[in-house]
């Protein structure tokens, strides 16, 4: 029998290792799997490469993982938001690496990672500093850059509803990077607000087919990053 449901975040992230590349869903707080990230903080693995659109806010979730010195490198499109303090400080001191990638290129590199496509050409960033060192090529008289795919050892993803096969649906704009990250990791770990019986999600509306998901953890009341930030909470809990 297929049963991808794990009992706790700790159990679901138990085999994450030092030096792993982890894809983390979310655009700002929408879709950010805080509980899974906190489990990685508890585990204490180091030298992680994190692929995520942002670098977290305040001192919880992704920001806390970075603050806890577990992250060697971040691959992202927008490493600062209104309440980002952790990453900018480490970065300005040269204590963390940054690979800055345009948002659409980041998305496509991840999608290609999941789709078995090692590289593709894109018009984005041609003629900018982010094109430096990249291979250029003309198609139909227009210049493009060669971009290589991104794969993760693990993906941490937040969704709305899951079943034991790993079929997922998301909530509104919390979908963002989740579906493509699920495809691009060796082990995809998902936190779901609801776990439903197989067959309850209409086959026409499944967003992430179960084949892309290895583990599901029920988190019925996920924390809201903005609330924690407003309360100046820190993880590990202050």
């Amino acid at each position, binding site marked *: 029998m297929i049963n991808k449901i794990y009992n706790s975040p700790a159990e679901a992230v138990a085999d994450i290792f030092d030096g792993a590349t982890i894809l983390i869903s979310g655009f700002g707080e929408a879709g950010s799997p805080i509980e899974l990230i906190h489990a990685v903080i508890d585990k204490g693995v180091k030298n992680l490469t994190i692929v995520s659109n942002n670098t977290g806010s305040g001192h919880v979730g992704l920001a806390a993982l970075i603050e806890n010195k577990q992250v060697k490198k971040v691959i992202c*499109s927008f490493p600062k938001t209104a309440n980002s303090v952790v990453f900018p400080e480490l970065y300005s001191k040269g204590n963390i690496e940054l690979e800055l990638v345009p948002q659409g*290129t980041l998305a496509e590199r991840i999608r290609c990672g999941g789709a078995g496509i090692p590289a593709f050409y894109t018009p984005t960033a041609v003629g900018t500093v982010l094109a430096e060192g990249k291979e250029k090529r003309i198609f139909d008289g227009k210049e493009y850059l060669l971009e290589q795919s991104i794969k993760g050892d693990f993906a941490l993803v937040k969704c709305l509803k899951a079943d034991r096969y790993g079929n997922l649906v998301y909530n509104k704009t919390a979908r963002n990077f989740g579906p493509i990250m699920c495809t691009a990791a060796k082990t995809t770990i998902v936190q779901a607000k609801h776990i439903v019986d197989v067959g309850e999600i209409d086959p026409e509306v499944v967003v992430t087919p179960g084949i892309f998901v290895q583990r599901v953890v029920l988190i019925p009341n996920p924390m809201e990053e903005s609330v924690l930030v407003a309360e100046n909470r820190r993880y590990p809990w202050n």
Partner: protein
Amino acid sequence: MELKVNGWDMNFVAQKIASDIPDGSYVNLGIGIPELVANYIPEGREIIFHTENGLLGMGPAPDPDKADPELINAGKKCVTAIAGACFFHHADSFTMIRGGHIDYCVLGAFQVSQEGDLANWSTGEPNSVPAVGGAMDLVAGVKNIFVITTHLTKKGEPKIVKQCTYPLTGKNVVNKIYTNFAVMEIIDKKLFVTEMAPDIDFEFLKSVTDADLYLKT
């Protein structure tokens, strides 16, 4: 330099842009001043707003008690979804952008060059954290790039320049520039002034613009 003119209010500039966007267009608005454009869509026009974090059919901000932190725009502010909206993941969202499906994008600017180069993502200061987001994708893919900006920086320096000194977002990408002083169009790498604010004349405009300006006749 002390200015003796005011030009247009930026709300009025936003209104000008809104009136230049045809019925039925798909539009992406940058964060900040560009968001003003959504307030001025002429009655009777249906414009569909795209936000790159996965929503087509973005509506106005919700009542605070109805805000959903998982229904946000690219600026990470709570928004609503109109009837007929749809949600999708980031690769599909940038298929819309990179694939040339979005008709108009309105962006802010640090600098725009007379050939349509745009600099709006980084001041290039060595200690600042660079953050690009979707800006480079938008200028590379959207059919029409409109810039809305004050004509001068807060210090009074020209933002419309011969050549950008800040790091570029894209080369030869801007189609039209809307400032508080004038509306300019870039055609074949030349900058044509199509309209000026009532208290602005061409000579004055040239004096506050570090670029070759042509009057569109």
